[in-house]
């Protein structure tokens, strides 16, 4: 296994932070919340995957509350 792959997961996450678009660092907390992307590490590769919700509901079976309307 290469040195790159031996790095602990958190190191990859920290490196991934630097790959965020520059504008992200200028966002307000509210904007960051709106644009939140969680970053994960794909097993056995050095690829970084940006995780985040799909653009629309996959289904509407998930119940909603009045506050979310």
């Amino acid at each position, binding site marked *: 296994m290469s040195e790159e792959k031996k790095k602990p997961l958190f190191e990859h996450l920290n490196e991934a932070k630097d790959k965020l678009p520059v504008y992200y660092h200028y966002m307000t907390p509210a904007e960051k919340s709106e644009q939140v992307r969680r970053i994960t590490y794909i097993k056995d590769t050095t690829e970084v995957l940006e*995780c985040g*919700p799909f653009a629309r509901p*996959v*289904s*509407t*079976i998930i119940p909603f509350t009045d506050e979310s309307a």
Partner: protein
Amino acid sequence: MSQPKQVFRLFANCKVTEGARRSVVCDLWHGRYDFIPNMLVHLLNEHADMSLDEIKAAYDHEHDDTIDEYYHFLEGNGYGFYTSEPHLFPPLPDTYRHPGPISNAIIDMDRQSGHDIEKILAQLDDLGCVAVQFRAYEAFTPGEWHSMLTAALTTRIPDVQLVTPYISELASAEWRKLVNTHPRVSSLSLHSAPDNRKEETPSQVEITFTTQPITDHSHCGVVHPAFFSINIEAYTEATQANSCLNGKISIDRQGYICNCPSLPERYGHTRDTSLREALAQKDFARYHSMTKDSVSVCSDCEFRYICSDCRAFVQDPAQDTDSPKAYGKPSGCNYDPYTATYTSGPAVS
């Protein structure tokens, strides 16, 4: 020397949808919308190349205050701007493309399902799927979910959503631990819970507790503002294709492959049919390319490009309007665009 003419332009990410009684202007970048009168849409369309003074003159200055109010609203709320070089600001095209035949999937399951999750997720990954929603109608522990989610680790699927029964013996910390372990999980909904509440994890994943029991697929199909999608991807898709069924493939709780578990058609079983083979079958994508523009009532609704459609639970189109379209309105929608009100009565429960 005269000043160049200033005309009004909506920002490219701001789109207007006209309804029967009123319209909406959607800011697809910031995920918000406002209602505007249909007359303002008319002004934007018919007098796009006129200055504000020219527009007022076109109406013999009888509506100057109203015209000022309309355009001040759009400019003040960040929907548009004045420019002397409108040719530099072309509109955002409505084209939608996804790099694969499938973008999202539903996997329904109970204790008897016995789905080969690893095999299914690998096929979904191969088809370009980016969102998978697991809908469990019987309880699975966080440990069991962990095993299933581990199968997703070697895929490029960035969004996994879980809908599963609440387990009274389990502390919510167990569920939080599951979500924290799997960053792909974007939402966790625990139904049949003792109370309605929400929790948010440090990674801003929302855990929803709801008292509503979800026992089968018939609980789906609700059209409600809580499910509106106000973003470029969803909006452009809705103008070109179906806002629920396009790019979707599903596995029902018995393992049969379908477009949606609530639709009657099945296209083989996962044990002997690949998802790609099912997708290639005649009529699998019969609803993929239909838009709300071909649905009675919905075609007159200002929300038609931001709401979610349903083809499983629909009204008879002949009863909806005097000039019915090819398809009926989702019966889970209580909005009447002709009166701009929500009617009472239950949606699909």
